[in-house]
């Protein structure tokens, strides 16, 4: 009996060790594996190669200001590049921006305490995937409108576990106030909500999903999300 427990313990510890090794970002092997993995994923994908050229250089990922600033600059640079195809631009921007959003958290918060528990695990997964897609497209469309503007960051406001970073977009005929809301996840700052001119995207989606789920079912919501925008 005792040896069985010992074996189990050893097994557990070993499992932990393997698990930890997998996630250690400083492990050169892991880094290599991830890098080569990324390339193997699609060796013919020119975006993979392009990304390294266009992606933001974030000197200190722990500094949320620096993160937001660098990513915005990178996105604007891609959008203003003349020698890139439109589709390539869109995919590039998606790849640059995605890591700084906490999509799973946004999906959870957008349904909220009231509706999230109603979803089964597969539904949650599907919802998160569809909602993430919608957010990415929406980000892209909105960003395209604002690329001529000069961006300036204002001092961040820290509130307990979250940080608010205001950004001002200025041009000759427009002035747009943007507020990024970030939360620390696994030692990285990630965006969980964005306000444009005082309008929170999370709140706007929440009102829509709430309305749909009050009158319909989760299946209705998912099929509505799945539909491409009608235009």
């Amino acid at each position, binding site marked *: 009996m005792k040896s069985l427990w010992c074996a189990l313990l050893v097994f557990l510890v070993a499992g932990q060790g393997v698990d930890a090794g997998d996630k250690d970002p400083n492990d050169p092997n892991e880094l290599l594996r991830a890098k080569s993995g990324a390339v193997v994923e699609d060796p013919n994908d020119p975006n993979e190669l392009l990304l390294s050229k266009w992606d933001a250089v974030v000197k200190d990922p722990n500094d949320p200001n620096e993160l937001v600033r660098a990513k915005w600059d990178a996105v604007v640079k891609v959008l203003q590049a003349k020698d890139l195809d439109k589709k390539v631009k869109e995919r590039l921007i998606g790849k640059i921006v995605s890591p700084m959003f906490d999509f799973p958290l946004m999906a*959870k918060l957008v349904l*909220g305490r009231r509706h999230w528990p109603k979803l089964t695990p597969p539904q949650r997964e599907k919802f998160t995937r569809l909602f993430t897609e919608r957010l990415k497209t929406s980000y892209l469309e909105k960003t395209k409108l604002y690329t001529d503007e000069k961006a300036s960051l204002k001092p961040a406001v820290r509130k307990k576990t979250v940080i608010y970073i205001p950004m001002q977009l200025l041009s000759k005929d427009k002035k747009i106030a943007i507020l990024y809301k970030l939360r620390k996840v696994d030692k990285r700052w990630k965006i969980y909500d964005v306000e444009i001119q*005082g*309008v929170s995207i999370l709140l706007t989606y929440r009102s829509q999903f709430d309305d749909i789920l009050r009158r319909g079912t989760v299946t209705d919501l998912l099929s509505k999300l799945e539909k491409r925008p009608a235009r």
Partner: protein
Amino acid sequence: MRLQAWAIIVVLAVITAGCTASKKTAADQQHILAAPNPIAMPSESSEDDEFDLIDEDLEKQLEEQKVKISDPLKPVNRIMYHVNDKLYFWVLRPTARAYKAVAPKPVRTGIRNFFNNLTTPVRFISCHLQGKHKAAGRELHRFAYNTTVGVLGFGDPAKDKLGLEPADEDLGQTLGKWGLGNGVYLVLPLFGPSTVRDGLGLVGGQFLNPVRYVKPAETSYGISAGQITNENSFRIGEYEAFKDAAIDPYIAMRNAYIQYRNKKVQE
């Protein structure tokens, strides 16, 4: 005369809307009151371990920020929303595009400046009524400078040279500042999302709009149509992006409008 008739019609519409809606309003408000109460559902909270403490914090915040607006006229509003939507895609956007193609940007910016200068009275008075006397003084300064140095307001040297930013104030915000709530949500033909309060502000704003005093009325409305087209030429793509992002554009518009206006009133 025409203007007065118009004002009376709007006021009447608002009042009758309020009357027919009163029954539904109570129900709608109850609906709203019942909504943000996650604690009242013990069965769900106990089985749900997905929300950890930090999520709980954010969840609470979102519940607090939740937009409260009663919309008893929803069926009519929804129809009006679709009318405006079609109006945009079939009339306003093609017009603005055609106009944009022939009018170079400096011209359009000049026209925009001209109308902004012309509508100084609303902003000036709204600033004063909200006790923002400094901002009101800035508006007056802007008006004097832009009308003279800026050649009848076609240029905006007050901003470019003196760094005087225009105050984004209107009568709806003023009423809000005075403590008047949004009231019932309205979708106005052509004007789009509004509320009873902002509708009243809009009517008052028309009395302070010099364009409305141009005779004959046809000319006056023609000028306004030109102004709207000019303004739209700067905003092509905004509504499209908004609509693409939305799942239910009507609800999204209502929510975003109220968030936006609440923020404006706060400022």
